[in-house]
């Protein structure tokens, strides 16, 4: 699915990723953990195609195709979804109208007609129930005045609507209380299949109690320095990151 090879990237001449390798296969869940400033969000944004970052070396392949030159929307059309750490407020565009536009633009890119209004409504109803989202919520302006938890739930709602191949969840657990965390994790688990993959970026182990990863990677100073199974996350939770840093020396 996703193959990142020796990825190097910088922002404003400051090197952030320094030769990162990662392979994610269909059906897998990967967790990326690491201390602040390790480059976790940078990795997420670069895969999604944010222009501020300059890729200075390496490749990003999605299903065998190099996507590093594609525009963000083209990557989205190819099935990349990023759940933002800080979802942007867009006053004047309702959640419903936004997701309709997103779905129909994606269909247009694939040469398909707009989704019939009836099917769209049905899908919106289904997925909003999955995320326990109130109907009134859907007619509000996108993310405007949403609580932290509402924003994250709305991200996963959009993920459910768009059905991406590769979903990157960037600190989706931050700002969530325990009930919201359960709802969001449940939503993600329901969407998991043998054909798609999920990358969970998090500081804390608690989300991984709900979304159980096949692999846990530790990102430190722009590189993946350690990979293990779900038990690694527990170890990190108990011991912090310092022991890994020491191991590296």
């Amino acid at each position, binding site marked *: 699915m996703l193959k990142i090879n020796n990825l190097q990237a910088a922002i404003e001449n400051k090197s952030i990723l320094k030769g990162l390798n990662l392979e994610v296969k269909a059906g897998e869940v990967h967790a990326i953990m690491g201390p602040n400033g390790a480059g976790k969000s940078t990795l997420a944004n670069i895969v999604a195609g944010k*222009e501020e970052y300059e890729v200075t070396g390496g490749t990003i392949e999605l299903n065998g195709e190099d996507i590093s030159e594609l525009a963000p*929307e083209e990557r989205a059309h190819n099935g990349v979804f990023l759940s933002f750490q800080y979802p942007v407020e867009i006053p004047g*565009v309702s959640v419903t109208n936004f997701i309709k536009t997103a779905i129909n633009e994606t269909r247009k890119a694939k040469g398909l007609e707009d989704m019939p209004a009836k099917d769209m409504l049905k899908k919106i109803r289904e997925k909003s129930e999955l995320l326990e989202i109130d109907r009134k919520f859907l007619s509000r302006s996108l993310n405007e005045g949403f609580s932290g938890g509402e924003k994250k739930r709305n991200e996963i709602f959009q993920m459910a609507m768009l059905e991406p191949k590769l979903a990157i969840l960037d600190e989706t657990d931050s700002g969530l209380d325990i009930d919201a965390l359960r709802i969001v994790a449940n939503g993600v688990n329901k969407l998991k299949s043998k054909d798609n993959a999920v990358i969970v970026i998090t500081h804390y182990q608690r989300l991984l109690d709900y979304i159980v990863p096949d692999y846990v990677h530790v990102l430190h100073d722009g590189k993946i320095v350690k990979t293990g199974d779900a038990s690694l996350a527990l170890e990190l939770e108990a011991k912090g990151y310092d022991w890994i840093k020491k191991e590296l020396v």
Partner: protein
Amino acid sequence: MELKDKLLSSYVAFEDNVDTNSEVHEIRSKALDNFDKLGFPTKKLEAWKYTSLNSVLKNDFSIFPDREKAVELADVKKFFIHDIDTYKVVFIDGKYSSFLSATTHENFDVCLMSSALNKPKYKAVIDKYFNKVAKQDNLTSLNTAFAAEGAYIHIPKNTEVQKPIQIINFTTGSEPATMLQPRNLVVAEENAHVQIIERHQSLTSNAVLTNAVTEIFAAKSATVDCYKIQNDNLNASLVDNTYIDQKSNSVVSVHTFSFGGNITRNNLNFYQNGEHIDSILKGVTIIEGKQHVDHHTLVHHIEPNCESHQDYKGIYDERSTGVFNGKVIVNKEAQKTNAYQQNNNVLVSDKATINAKPQLEIFADDVKCSHGCTIGQLDDDALFYMQQRGIPQKEGKGLLMFAFANTVLESVKIPEVKSRITKLIANKLGVNIGFEL
């Protein structure tokens, strides 16, 4: 000959066609003297610092276009709001078109200024209202001097006009350059309700300069809603002077949608002569190329307990230039005033310009006056967010601009006008938006 001299020397010919033994004509002659004294506005005047008419005034305007040119309904239908029943007062090159109009005298008057100025039965209203709120500045004086035609709307007490009234001025380009001075009068008596849609439309690319004056009188508890659709050809310039006199408990709203035209100057003036008045001023400006749109608004809070709400949004692309000068005066007596002013601008290109100037003069001490003015670019993070969800950059930009302008559309009360403006905005932004915001 300079345009000013041409106008002054044509006055004798103009007088041949109007009743010179009337009070109105005395007003006209005084106004002509005033224009003679003041001349056209120049950039030396504070109020015209950012808007120059020089390039327009160079045209050799025909002042009284008199060549009749036939206009086919099929060719101009698109400029009307035609999916609902309306009254229409239509002029072609400044002359009344009975063929395109639909006037009435049943229960209320929707007709011609020329009839109102000449027929005795309208004299009382004309004497009471004509030129009574219009300011005596240079261009208004010029219009007053040549005031002869336009729309006359008089709604008696407790009358609600069920259909909107469209006032449309077409120019056919029968002359290489045409100057028009339409003069409208709207009187809504106590508790009357009326909705007006106004449009100036040139049918060719020949030069046009329209210097329009509209006086609106809203008596106690009257409601007047006015929608100005400015989407003219690129060689047509407009100075639109609107003066509104409001009495207690009246509500007057003016929405101005400026998308087309060469130079557009809106002088919108509200005078609150009573208590518990609400004045609403809204505008969306979306321009490009070398277009120029200038909004000069004035709300004069004269008495206590009144409100005013201003919300102007502007999107400027390429080398276009905009001006927003929003003046709010609160007299010493006007305690408990609530005056709100919002002006937000987006510069899409780095060659576009906006000159924004909120101007508050507050002499009362127990008031709520707020104003906000922003000038910015489109939010890159919002754009990336949309692209990440599969919305291409161009459509994303369109959607962001659309959403930005949307707050102004919310208060449009006629659904057909709202959907027409929505379409005009979508076209203007070059996006195909599959829903109405």
